[in-house]
Every structure is written in structure tokens, then in C-alpha cells.
């Protein structure tokens, strides 16, 4: 058990490209930390630097208080689960699980005990003598996790472990990883580009963009108070609606601007708005927006109605419970609570708080 501490970690490739530009982050002992961001944001590079698979160009990485910058991956007391599983194809499942322990000269009885236990936890006991090629994707993923578990490491590292699974299996495995981590209480660092996966798994969520941390915190804290326009649009689906205050159709919202003279952009999440249909009234703490419907997406339990603000303004999505019968071209009014708006500096993208 150990905390992972990154301080001012940098990665510069030989060609001069700076993939990670000074990341400082502390993952407390036993926490599940998820790094999320678009592809190319440096999240995998960061993970691989913690693993020891990439050299560290600057800053320090500590695992359990020990600086590991110059240690081989095997000496860092970590275990990793790869996207394509990376199981040894010529070894049986049992041999795959045993390999790392044998290389560490773990006593035979101890190896047997740990393999038994991992097999029990992951329910892969009946596959122990098969080769990876004879297993399904989900089973291989379990074996890959088993290989990490038997090591009883100070930290688990996950590199997009669910991306190769189909949608349904991904949901099951996600829950399973979460349960497993709660049970073992092993510090975990998990990389994904899927914000839903990130939200559901993380104790600590870290949003990365262009080699820097945009925001770190609990998933709900980030969801409720995104620190920047980038985070606001990256976390949450469908994305937060944005209205530049100097843009078309924004005049009714001018009063909502925050302090300061900078140009501002307002944001509001689709689920915080409602359509004024069938004579529903407007409350005092709401503001009304005129939308011309451009599309309707029916998900099943709910629908998302998108419409242009004041004909020429930005597109705004509104969540509607149940099935919406609106047709494109229709005019509709939407109400939004004043308190649900987020304010951002349009230039820097940073969040503005009301005084």
C-alpha cells in the first residue's frame, strides 16, 4: 500500500515534442485515480512514466515515499493491465499468473496460494490450464487483472483496459474492477478516454489536456464546478451548452455575467433546463430562452431536444423526460434556473466565480 506522488513531471521526446508539461499530483494510499482526456493529451505517457516504461525527462515520481525515477519497472512494486491484455500467448493462464512471481523467486507454496486466491476472486479457476488464445475477450481481461493481483503490488496501473471489449461487457467489467479495488484497497491509477468510465470509477478524477492537468478532484466536484471550458465540455454527456455572451442571441443572458470586464461565456447543462410545453409556467428564479428546434434525439427514458438560440445563436440541448414529439423547425421556449449557470472567461477558458 502506498501513495503515488508526482511532482512537476515532464516528458520531452527526442524530437522536442513536449508530451507532459509539468504535472504535480498526489494519489493517496488506497485511492482510485482516473486520468481522463482526449487522445494525445499525455495521459498514457504519464502512466507509462509511473510504470517505468518511459523515461522521465523532468520532475520526480514517488511510490510509497520512494523516488522511482531511475528504477526498472520490475523494481517499482507496481503491476499493470494493458489494453490488449499482453498475455504471453504460449503460456497457460496459470503460467501467465506465475511468471512474474517466479522471476521474483517467490516460494512455490506462496505462488500457489496467490494464484488460487486470484483465480477464486476473478472466477477463472476453470481456465487455469488453457492458453489465452482459447479464451474470450472478457476472460482474457480477467486473466490480465489476475496477473496484476497475484503480484500484490503497491499500486495497480490500468492503461485503457476496457477499450477492446464490447459495450455490454465493458459495463460489467467496469463494475467488477471497482469492486475489486474497493476490496483490495490497492492504490490505482487508471487511464481512459471515456468520461463515463472515468466518472463511475474514480475516487479522484484528473482531467488532462495538452500535457497539463486541467482539473483534479472528486468526480462530482468536477461535474458541478468544472474549472474550465475544456472540462465543462469534456465531462458530461451530452456536453454542457455554451453561450458566448458577445455572440448572437445572447442578449437576454447579459444580466447573468460575472464580475470583471473580460469577455465571458455562459454554460448550462442540458439536464438543468426544461421545455415550457403544455402551459407550464415560469418560476421567478428562471430565465426563458427562445429555441428553434433543429433535432430530437430519443434515448428511451429521456429525449434530448436541440435547438438554435434565437434562430442564429449557438445550439442548446435540453433534456426532456420520456418521448418528445417535437419536429425540427418548431419554436419552443426553454426555462433555465439562474443558479445553474456557469461563467467562464472566454479568453483563458477559466471558470469565473460570482463575488
Amino acid at each position, binding site marked *: 500500500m502506498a501513495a503515488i506522488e508526482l511532482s512537476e513531471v515532464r516528458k520531452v521526446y527526442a524530437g522536442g515534442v513536449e508530451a507532459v508539461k509539468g504535472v504535480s499530483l498526489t494519489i493517496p494510499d488506497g485511492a482510485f485515480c482516473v486520468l481522463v482526456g482526449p487522445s494525445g493529451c499525455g495521459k498514457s505517457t504519464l502512466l507509462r512514466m509511473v510504470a517505468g516504461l518511459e523515461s522521465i525527462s523532468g520532475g520526480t515520481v514517488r511510490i510509497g515515499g520512494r523516488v522511482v525515477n531511475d528504477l526498472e*519497472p*520490475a523494481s517499482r512494486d507496481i503491476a*499493470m493491465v*494493458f489494453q490488449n491484455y*499482453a498475455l504471453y*500467448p504460449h503460456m497457460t493462464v496459470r503460467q501467465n499468473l506465475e511468471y512474474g512471481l517466479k522471476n521474483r523467486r517467490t516460494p512455490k507454496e506462496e505462488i500457489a496460494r496467490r494464484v488460487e486466491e486470484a483465480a477464486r476472486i476473478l472466477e477463472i479457476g476453470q481456465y487455469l490450464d488453457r492458453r489465452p488464445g482459447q479464451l474470450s475477450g472478457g476472460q482474457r481481461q480477467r486473466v490480465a487483472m489476475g*496477473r496484476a493481483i497475484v503480484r500484490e503490488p503497491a499500486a495497480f496501473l490500468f492503461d485503457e483496459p476496457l477499450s477492446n471489449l464490447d459495450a455490454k461487457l465493458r459495463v460489467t467489467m467496469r463494475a467488477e474492477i471497482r469492486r475489486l479495488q474497493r476490496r483490495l484497497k490497492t492504490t490505482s491509477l487508471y487511464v481512459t478516454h471515456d468520461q463515463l468510465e472515468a466518472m463511475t470509477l474514480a475516487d479522484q478524477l484528473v482531467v488532462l489536456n495538452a500535457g497539463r492537468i486541467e482539473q483534479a478532484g472528486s468526480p462530482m466536484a468536477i461535474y458541478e464546478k468544472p474549472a474550465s471550458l475544456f472540462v465543462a465540455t469534456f465531462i458530461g454527456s451530452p456536453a454542457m451548452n455554451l453561450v458566448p455572451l458577445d455572440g448572437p442571441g445572447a442578449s437576454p443572458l447579459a444580466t447573468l455575467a460575472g464580475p470583471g470586464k473580460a469577455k465571458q461565456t455562459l454554460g448550462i447543462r442540458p439536464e438543468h433546463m426544461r421545455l415550457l410545453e403544455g402551459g407550464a409556467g415560469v418560476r421567478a428564479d428562471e430565465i426563458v430562452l427562445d429555441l428553434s428546434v433543429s433535432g430530437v434525439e430519443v434515448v428511451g427514458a429521456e429525449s434530448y431536444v436541440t435547438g438554435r438560440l434565437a434562430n442564429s445563436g449557438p445550439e442548446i440541448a435540453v433534456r426532456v423526460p420520456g418521448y418528445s414529439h417535437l419536429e425540427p423547425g418548431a419554436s419552443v421556449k426553454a426555462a433555465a434556473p439562474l443558479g445553474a449557470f456557469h461563467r467562464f472567461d472566454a479568453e483563458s477558458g477559466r471558470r469565473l466565480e460570482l463575488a
Partner: protein
Amino acid sequence: MIERDRGGRIFAHLLLILGVLIVAFPIYYTFIASTQTIQTILRPPLPLTPGGEFAENYGQALFGGVGRIGGVDVGTLLFNTSVMALGIALGKIAISLLSAFAIVFFRFPFRMFFFWMIFVTLMLPVEVRILPTYKVMVDLGLIDTYAGLILPLVASATATLLFRQFFMTIPPELVEAARIDGAGPMKFFRDILIPLSRTNIAALFVILFIYGWTQYLWPLLVTNDNRMNTIVIALKKMVSFADADTPWNLVMVTAILAIVPPVLVVVLMQRWFVRGLVESEK
């Protein structure tokens, strides 16, 4: 096939049988001759079925020694040829595995320089540089040694290129997983890379064994001592049409014995051999 073309199929079978007969006949002919007395051989036409001298001829050739090639028995020749063929096959596989491993799984200065240095040797068979290579052998004192028979033929790029190509298909995550599992490069090489390359190694072994066994020019040059001859060279030395006392029955036995081991290797390891051949030339 598209039509249930019975006539065509029968014709195809006939064609194949004819092909097999032509392909196999010279070997059969020689085998027949190897079971006859020298008198029968010298009085054509040769009978179409084996004669009664099988045990006598083969026994004498294998263990008795053949006068024309300095009294060396064919057993010794087979041993020499086996050493040469195995040495070339195993030596080439070993050094190629190592160098391909270095080129694919490490990053170091002059990596591509070494790659090209090896690659260029692909273009120059030993036949085109015989004389200077021979001089090198003399200078190094390798005439009439097994090392002299083997080493110059071990330097070739084909096997290295083949392994390089195969290694590049191995997912990089496998290397990373192994590093996290505490396997250093040599452990990875032994525990993961070699087992994964088994099929390629088997295929290459067959091709290189044949290559080594069928060498002619090189063993001709580097062996002066009859005791160091390979079977192919000795066979050539035994044959003389000008000479009345060529032991034709023993010549035929030697020819058959020169053919059988490599044919066995090819036929028994056919599956790997065919795959390896067609792949290595791509």
C-alpha cells in the same frame, strides 16, 4: 471446382502421376543400381526392379571404406556432412536470432548501420567471392577443419531478415508486460521470444539444413584431406568415366545415402518447410 468435371480431374491425376514419375525416376533408377552387382550396372539396360546386392553393397560402402577416396568409409562422410549441415543450420539460426533480437528490441547508436551492413550480405552468395574467401581461410588456418566448412556459410542475411520481420509483429506490450514481470532482456529472449518463434525456427532449420547438406563449391575448396570430405564431394571424386575401375555399385550406394537424409528432413518436416519456404522468399 466450378464444374463437376470428372474427365478433367482424371486427366489431372494422370498428369500428376506422370510428373511424380519423372521427378522420382532418377532417384529410383539410382536406387535400383545401388542393389546390383557392378557387372549388371555396366551392362545396360538396367533391370527395373531391385537386385540382390542391397546388404552387400550398403555394408561395404558404409563401413568398408572406398579405395578411390582414400579408403574413407561413407559413414565418416555422412558424419562430416551432418556436422556441416547442422553447424550451418544451428549456427545461422543462433546468430540470426541474437542479431535480430538486438535490432528489433533495443535502441542504440548505429542500429540501422548494423542492419544495413547485414542486409547487404543478402546480395552476395559465396560463389562470387570464392578466391578471396579461400585466402582468408588459408590465413586463418581453417582448411580441413569443421569450422572452415561452417563459418563462412553462417554469415548471411536471410535468416536475420526473417526473424526481424517476425519479431516486428510481436506486440510491444508483451515486452512491457515482461519488464513489469521482472524479466530482463535475456530472460525475455529465452522465456518468451524463443518459444514464440518455434515455428519459424523449425522452418528455417529445414531450409538451412538442406542448404548446408547440398553445398558443393565450398567444401570442395576447403577440404584437401579425404577424411574431411562431405558425401557430395566424395561422390564426385569417386566417379570417373575414363577409369575402368570406378566402383559403380558403391557410387550408387553413396548417391542414395547422399540423398536420403535431406529428403527425410524435408518430407518429415514438410509442414514447416513449405510454410517457411514460401514465407522466407516473400
